[in-house]
């Protein structure tokens, strides 16, 4: 069972890496944010799987912390993107 869980963790990690291609390719900030969001939830899933496979209960706490941090990261990203795009919009309205 532990082997199986570790293989699934590896698979999910591979999927997250595949999703990271969108960070390089994505045309806008929103697409890159989505890949970061997938990275957060995928990493949480990997941590839960590894924690169950190794019987290490503390890993679940790491996953819990990561869940909090991933949310803050995405919100900071959105604020950054909004601030970056706002002057152009206001310039259009002022003109």
């Amino acid at each position, binding site marked *: 069972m532990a082997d199986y869980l570790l293989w*699934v963790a590896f698979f*999910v990690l591979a999927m997250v890496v595949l999703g990271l291609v969108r960070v390089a390719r994505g045309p806008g900030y929103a697409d890159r944010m989505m890949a970061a969001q*997938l990275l957060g939830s995928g990493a949480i899933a990997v941590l839960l799987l590894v924690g169950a496979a190794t019987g290490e209960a503390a890993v679940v706490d790491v996953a819990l912390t990561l869940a909090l941090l991933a949310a803050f990261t995405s919100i900071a990203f959105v604020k950054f993107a909004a601030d970056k795009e706002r002057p152009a919009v206001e310039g259009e309205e002022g003109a």
Partner: protein
Amino acid sequence: MRRGTTVSLLLDLFTCVFVAAGAFFFLAGSVGLLRFPDAYTRLHALTKADNLGLALIALGLMPQVGGALAALKLVLVWLLVLLSGAAVSQLIARAARRRDSRP
């Protein structure tokens, strides 16, 4: 004793099925994120991976962590991700819409 092994076998089977289903949703989310044409459809694929993939994996792992409290913690992790994911998806969609509606 025989009954105990049957129950643990069933629980292992439960874990196998649900964890595999969760991994499949992560596959679908990644492929959708790469292949879908615009930001909104990509967001649709991403939220499936976020909510359902993690939910199925957490549900499948619940018999393996040994104890009701540890299983409850998995549910808490999932609920936190669900809440933050809903908020963040909404923010991302709003940012994408603001970008698209810019003249």
